[in-house]
């Protein structure tokens, strides 16, 4: 039903350039896009909202290219992931990035995941979602968030990230194992 109303709204945007219809699409999907980007940016709400805004602007500009090969939300999440990667690249190339002050969302998580001693030092603190996710590599985190938070299938995750389904499966397996180990070592569950 959601898909049908999305298609009707998309048709209005493409054929008539209706901002009102696009507004309804944004309203219906803002939560998924913003939540996904918040998890990718380790809970940085302002940055996530800026990226979400950029995502919807790109969707507005490219809506006539939406071929319905996937659901509209999957298509939006794919744009959001690209916007995030572009932003990461821009951050990496900026002089500030080399100070190492604001790189919590980069692949450093992979190293952290393999060193349980780091996690155990945070025991006793309230269990934080982004703290737990930061123990995963960027790719693992994206796969886990898309499946466990956004409810996307492996096929859809592969479309969003532009990687093969088998690669998604192995990232999911490794990411979930690392995450479960982190949660247990912090007394969760």
């Amino acid at each position: 039903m959601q898909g049908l109303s999305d298609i009707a709204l998309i048709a209005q945007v493409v054929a008539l350039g209706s901002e009102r219809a696009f507004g309804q699409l944004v309203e219906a999907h803002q939560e998924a896009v913003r939540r996904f980007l918040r998890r990718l940016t380790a809970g940085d709400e302002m940055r996530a909202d800026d990226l979400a805004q950029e995502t919807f602007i790109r969707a507005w500009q490219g809506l006539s290219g939406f071929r319905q090969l996937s659901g509209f939300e999957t298509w939006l999440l794919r744009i959001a992931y690209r916007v995030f990667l572009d932003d990461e690249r821009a951050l990496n190339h900026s002089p500030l990035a080399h100070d190492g002050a604001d790189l919590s969302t980069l692949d450093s998580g992979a190293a952290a995941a393999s060193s349980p001693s780091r996690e155990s030092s945070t025991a006793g603190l309230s269990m934080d979602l982004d703290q737990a996710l930061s123990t995963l590599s960027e790719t693992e985190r994206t796969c886990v968030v898309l499946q466990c938070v956004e409810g996307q299938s492996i096929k859809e995750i592969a479309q969003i990230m532009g990687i093969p389904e088998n690669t998604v499966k192995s990232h999911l397996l490794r990411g979930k194992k690392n995450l479960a180990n982190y949660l247990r070592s912090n007394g969760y569950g």
Partner: protein
Amino acid sequence: MEKNKQYISSDEALIASFFAEHREPIADNGFTERVLSALPQRENASWAEAMRLRRWSLWLNVLGTIAGIGLLIYLGVFTEWMQFLQHLSNRLISGVLYFDYSNLLVQFMLFLHRLHELMPSPTQLLAIALTSMILTAVGIKRVVTDLQ
């Protein structure tokens, strides 16, 4: 192997409960308004693209209609249909067919019977189907190329 499966399923349950506990609703709080106010003017290119597609669609429809009528004339169906209509109107005018639905049905069955006799051979049908498929494929390819 069994033990490994148990670990995986317990991991899944642990992670599912963790994410369910941390699920936060995100209220719009003016986000949609901010997006709408930041929208750039839609590029005219998409309108030009739409017009080009419509033009293609129109031409394909015109060609399809001409081909369809041509095929009906070729098969003699068109002439047969016109004769049936003429026969029907003559009888209606003369009052013979007034409320005579059974007669109308008989005439229509006769028309269908003649139509059956006029049906092309399997070879002709195959040739028509192949030609239609090729024309459709060419049309679709042109539209896809235009889109790219």
